[in-house]
């Protein structure tokens, strides 16, 4: 595809439920990033993949959050036992390489936890 795609665009769930958010990066981009953008804030780093491995997950807020990228392309961000405070827009980005290359962002998934 031409750009980074994310599905779903919107997700409404109830407190305590499990959700999965998907990111399809630009073909050939080895680096993939997840950010979270709360209302009125800039994006905050969550996790970075280089290929299949999570090179840095220091931004994940707690162990309810987990992300995978099994084949080095599509990534899934998984949130267990969702809480109202998890409500935010989750952004995915990819770049050709890491370390300064331009990051191309997807449109985001707006997660609302009721």
């Amino acid at each position, binding site marked *: 595809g031409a750009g980074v795609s994310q599905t779903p665009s919107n997700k409404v769930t109830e407190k305590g439920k499990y959700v999965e958010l998907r990111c399809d990066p630009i073909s050939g981009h080895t680096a993939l990033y997840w950010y979270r953008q709360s209302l009125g804030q800039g994006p*905050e780093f969550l996790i*970075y993949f280089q290929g299949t491995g999570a090179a840095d997950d220091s931004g994940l807020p707690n162990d309810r959050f987990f992300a995978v990228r099994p084949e080095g392309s599509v990534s899934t961000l998984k949130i267990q036992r969702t809480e109202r405070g998890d409500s935010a827009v989750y952004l995915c980005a990819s*770049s050709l390489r890491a*370390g*300064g290359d331009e990051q191309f962002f997807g449109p985001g998934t707006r997660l609302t936890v009721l």
Partner: protein
Amino acid sequence: AQSVTQPDIHITVSEGASLELRCNYSYGATPYLFWYVQSPGQGLQLLLKYFSGDTLVQGIKGFEAEFKRSQSSFNLRKPSVHWSDAAEYFCAVGAVGDYKLSFGAGTTVTVRA
């Protein structure tokens, strides 16, 4: 740790007037600096970036930014705004060998006719 401050939460400007958005960063090493624009329902789009060299950087849509190391600033400018420039603008900092970007809180620009 790196950080970015965008002092102006909201700016209103008349169509055709000039625009300047402020960005100050804190980083120990040589920074990479970026300006992104986010329109409602859209992803972040890169306007311009500074890695090294000429401190005046030209970007898309008629935007430019100037890196001033002495002031730790990377302000974004446009000589004449169009109604389509109404959006939220984010300054971000990265670094050589680093991969995660640190973003400011953003500045919302409203363009009045």
